[in-house]
């Protein structure tokens, strides 16, 4: 579980620290940094697991505008595998040349160094922290995605496997396609590669398809199946097709996934994510997932997501929706604020129950506890 995130000199975050719980509702006005926080967290993870070039994930534009320093620092603490990990990155920006350089990157486990990049040299250490190997490396991206799993680095590979299950989901129905050329073991934040991921999911989780169908049948009237079919003479290309039934005779018909409504496609994706959540414990960064989902479906989906994520999953959810706020405010609410337009600061559980109002009403009326 992520226990601490520290971000300094990046967008609206200056010396920013957040210590999350298992379920975290991120609240706050527009522009206070909620979605940016999710993106930053996803970008930090992306450096370590996707090999994203540093200047794409953290361009010079991400420097805090009112801060004159040119170094950014990010830290991510994770409890797991019987200990405490800390992943740290420091980036140096040459603003005039628009160049970003990796100054330092470390992974520690219980204060032991597992991985260290500094001054153009990379050190790999063994599980017990003893020195393994050292070689020059160019700091335009992290070496971690290239790391080969070996018996002597199981602690480090556990951490990278953990980070691979940190998913940002910010669906954009316009981008969601029902066509797929290849399988993918991860879902893009906007859902654009859903068809590719669904091919992987349906292969890897055949046991999940029946319960998935049962749930979708309850929330999408007439839903029967979703399957990837070959497109004639198009090689590996597949197209998602949904089958429905209608009328008392339950006459069945098929419809291309792309022909479904925005809400239907978003609902299908969210329920697929839900069914996948118990296989590999995930850290889900959800940015307004309810945007395209029917009001009546929001709480049942959240309830089941919390259940299926189990004890090893973690949830960060940004929402302005009353149904989400009212339900999740009983867990841990984190209010994002920017006093006087300054850096983002956070406060926990700013609700006064004695007002007798639902959490969303307290937010709506501006009656959150004053700082």
């Amino acid at each position, binding site marked *: 579980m992520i226990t601490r995130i520290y971000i300094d000199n990046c967008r609206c975050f200056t010396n920013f620290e957040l210590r999350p719980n298992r379920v975290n509702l991120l609240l706050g006005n527009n522009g206070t940094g909620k979605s940016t926080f999710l993106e930053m967290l996803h970008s930090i993870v992306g450096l370590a697991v996707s090999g994203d070039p540093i200047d794409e994930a953290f361009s010079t534009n991400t420097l805090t505008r009112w801060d004159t320093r040119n170094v950014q620092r990010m830290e991510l603490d994770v409890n797991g595998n019987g200990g405490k990990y800390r992943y740290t990155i420091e980036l140096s920006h040459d603003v005039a040349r628009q160049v970003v350089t990796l100054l330092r990157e470390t992974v520690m486990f219980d204060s032991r160094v597992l991985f260290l990049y500094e001054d153009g040299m990379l050190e790999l250490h063994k599980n017990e922290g003893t020195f393994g190997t050292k070689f020059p490396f160019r700091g335009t991206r992290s070496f971690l995605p290239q790391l080969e799993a070996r018996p002597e680095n199981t602690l480090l590979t556990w951490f990278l496997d953990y980070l691979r299950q940190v998913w940002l989901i910010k669906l954009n129905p316009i981008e969601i396609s029902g066509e797929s050329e290849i399988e993918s073991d991860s879902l893009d934040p906007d859902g654009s590669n859903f068809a590719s991921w669904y091919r992987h999911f349906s292969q890897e989780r055949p046991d999940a398809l029946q319960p998935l169908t049962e749930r979708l049948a309850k929330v999408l009237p007439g839903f029967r199946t979703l399957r990837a079919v070959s497109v004639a003479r198009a090689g590996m290309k597949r197209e998602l097709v949904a089958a429905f039934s209608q009328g008392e005779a339950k006459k069945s018909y098929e419809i291309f996934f792309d022909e479904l409504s925005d809400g239907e496609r978003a609902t299908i994706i969210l329920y697929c994510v839900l069914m996948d959540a118990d296989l590999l414990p995930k850290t889900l960064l959800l940015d307004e997932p309810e945007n395209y989902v029917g009001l009546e479906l929001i709480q049942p989906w959240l309830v089941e997501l919390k259940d299926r994520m189990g004890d090893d999953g973690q949830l960060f959810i940004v929402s302005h929706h009353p149904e989400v706020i009212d*339900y999740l405010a*009983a867990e841990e609410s984190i209010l994002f604020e920017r006093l006087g337009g300054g850096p983002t600061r956070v406060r926990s559980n700013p609700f*006064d129950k004695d007002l007798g109002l639902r959490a969303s009403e307290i937010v709506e009326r501006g009656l959150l506890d004053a700082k």
Partner: protein
Amino acid sequence: MPSELSKFRGTILVEDTRTERFFRELLIHLGFERHKLRFRPAPKGRGDAKAWIRAQSQYPLEVRILRKKSYERIFLITAIDGDNNDPETRKTQLDHALQAEGLRARQDEERIAIPVPTWSIETWLLALLDHEVDEESSKKNSFEGYYPPKDERAALREAARQWQRKSDRIPTVPSLADGKSEMGRIGV
């Protein structure tokens, strides 16, 4: 074949997430449909959760809705901690909350259950899980001693499974017997 209970829609007002999780496990175990349950937990923060439940826009509002739709298959559960009071004290307070809003007190035939665990839900959970408990003191902290967070979900599920069993703990936890009787109001 779906049970008769699966046709009901229900609203469940609760003080905290553990109570919510227990009643969710219980209701699903008993045959209610997951998608037809709406939980209204008190927000986490300062103040009194019992006062929040009694407030105009919580219990009285839900009772008003239930009465307007009394011909439909809907029910209301208001799970509220008893602390060191007996269940009747809390039920009376909730009746007063209705009367303060110009509503009549809860009627026998209404599908409104008010389960009131003495002290908190942990008293019932430990009793259902066959621990030796009484109602002399709060069991809120001792529950986590028996069931740390990683075991909580399984414990709540097991407690829900034990709901209909004739518990040996009933004599020392009378609020549990009262709670079972309350749940009878919604057909359980």
